[in-house]
């Protein structure tokens, strides 16, 4: 097997507060191969965004990576000195944030922001960087880029600004793009364009993509594999068709059941009762057990480890080989 672009092993992220140490990410492991799009889904607060920020090293104090390893093409990038992780950011990992309206500095022309980023990471001259910036804008689908390059962010629509943000994220040809809810703040019609763009860029450049979203439609359409996160852990991870069609984890089942379809079957959408526990009150054992219809005694005391099930991997005691008969 070839080396994955991104390999995360047993990642833990903690936030130290005056009252307690909150563990936002608790033992997350996953790989993303070259050219692969991994979707990360889950409710708000499941740790999706924090995982993305941890990979690029942007967890601000009081948060910190307390355990685990993050490898980018074989080199460890967690706990790098500030100056070295800075060289990784933007150069080897591009990041796209949720809100394109606030991601760009309003006082600088978009061209200057792109040129600045290119020149930070390459040795291109000012004019070469400008030509590259125009190419990039053309590549992300901005019409008349040689004119728009001198525009200010407020002169662009939300979708166009997200394209600029994407151009900024890919300007140094990164190995990995982390897209943190890139379409949440956009109109539905624009969402599809942006998703198609990210997908195309990933395919054309062989870039690995980590797509954080809570939109299952986006996941089904874009991703090769999907990780379902719950309460700082990965509940289930596997190829997108398998997980969408045949979810194993009770939480993933609930999540897929909550997707409305236009197919017209007159059944009610399934709801998952209750809400995700707060970080300060994660129940012992499986964090999902208070909401789980299949929970049994073991779920309330012992934390389930990921178990392989064909191409999928699921963290649930129901799939424990020894326990299968008992359940």
């Amino acid at each position: 097997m070839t080396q994955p672009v991104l390999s995360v092993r047993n990642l833990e992220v903690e936030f130290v507060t005056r009252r307690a140490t909150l563990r936002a990410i608790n033992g997350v492991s996953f790989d993303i191969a070259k050219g692969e799009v991994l979707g990360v889904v889950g409710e708000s607060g499941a740790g999706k965004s924090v995982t993305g920020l941890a990979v690029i090293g942007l967890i601000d104090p009081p948060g910190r990576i307390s355990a685990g390893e993050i490898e980018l093409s074989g080199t460890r990038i967690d706990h790098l000195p500030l100056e070295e992780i800075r060289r990784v950011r933007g150069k080897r990992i591009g990041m796209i944030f949720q809100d394109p309206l606030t991601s760009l500095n309003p006082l600088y022309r978009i061209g200057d922001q792109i040129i600045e980023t290119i020149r930070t990471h390459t040795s291109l001259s000012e004019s070469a960087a400008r030509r590259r910036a125009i190419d990039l804008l053309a590549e992300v689908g901005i019409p008349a880029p040689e004119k728009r390059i001198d525009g200010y962010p407020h002169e662009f629509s939300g979708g166009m600004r997200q394209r600029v943000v994407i151009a900024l994220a890919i300007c140094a040809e990164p190995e990995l793009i982390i897209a943190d809810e890139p379409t949440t703040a956009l109109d539905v019609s624009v969402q599809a364009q942006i998703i198609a763009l990210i997908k195309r860029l990933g395919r054309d450049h062989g870039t690995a993509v980590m797509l954080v979203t809570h939109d299952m439609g986006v996941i089904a359409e874009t991703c090769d594999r999907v990780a379902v996160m719950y309460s700082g852990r990965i509940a289930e991870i596997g190829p997108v068709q398998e997980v969408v069609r045949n979810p194993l984890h009770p939480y993933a089942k609930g999540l897929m059941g909550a997707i409305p379809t236009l197919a017209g079957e007159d059944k009610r959408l399934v709801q998952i009762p209750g809400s995700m526990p707060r970080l300060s009150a994660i129940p012992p054992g499986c964090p999902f057990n208070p909401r789980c219809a299949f929970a049994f005694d073991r779920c309330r005391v012992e934390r389930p480890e990921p178990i392989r099930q064909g191409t999928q991997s699921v963290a649930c005691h129901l799939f424990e080989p020894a326990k299968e008969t008992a359940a």
Partner: protein
Amino acid sequence: MLAFTLRRLLQAIGVMLAVGVIAFAMFRFAGDPVNQMVSIDTSAAQRAEIRHSLGLDDPVLVQFGRYFINALQFKFGVSYQFRLPVSSLLAERLPATLELAICATLLAMVAGILMGVYSALRRDTILARLFQAISLIGISLPTFLIGILLIYLFAVTLGWLPSFGRGEVVKLGWWSTGLLTVSGWKAIIMPAITLGLFQMTLIMRLVRAEMLEVLRTDYIRFARARGLTTRAIHFGHALKNTLVPVITVAGLQFGSVIAFSIITETVFQWPGMGLLFVQAVQNVDIPIMAAYLLMVSLIFVTINLVVDILYTVVDPRLRSTVSRAT
């Protein structure tokens, strides 16, 4: 952009007209100037003659019209106490005040921005806390007290700096400057600090608060995610966004620096317009007071105008809304 500037210019003229009315009204309501100028044993005929020679017996509207037309030509009448044209008295004092105000403002801006940026970026260091403490003192201590304390320390006790005056001045045309001589520089240090301290602490606190605010924004986080250097993020992206509100405050403060220089000039016997004004108040020298009022308001209005225009230069968003609105 041009229409915007023109509109602001018209507003400025309106303000100046209103101030002109108030300045003129001072002549009518601040007592009879003739009584101030003559001794008790001046005869009524002589008083009437003086009154007539100063044009004080004409109808109010005529007097106002005359005052207005003269003011447009920078003729503000003759000082009652010096018997000299007010405009030449002011012109003589103007360089001293402007030099002091500019030095104080530059000092306040440079030191204020540096201290503000430092205490925002290194929030938890001892130095940052010290700056915060100093700024509290600067904001709460009155100007004259700071001036007197400085004089006591550096002029009386240590004898390093002169306690009053401008030192030697050099004439450049009609402009007299103290900034070309060593004694001039020595003389301006303490007044400039005294005058600028309040502004400095104000700017420092403003820069600190704004900077902390800006550092939390998404575009700073995105700039970090793009791998820009810390220096580029702090001093390029963050500082420029911080300076938008700072420009307004610093600009408007320049007007108050000139207005507040009255106190500093009195403490340090600085031969500027403020000192002239204080003497004029003591002697009910209304032409000087009225002209000073007009001048300070002209400075304020001009600064406001410049700040408005500068604002659109720094912030492109305003530029387009401004041109769209016209």
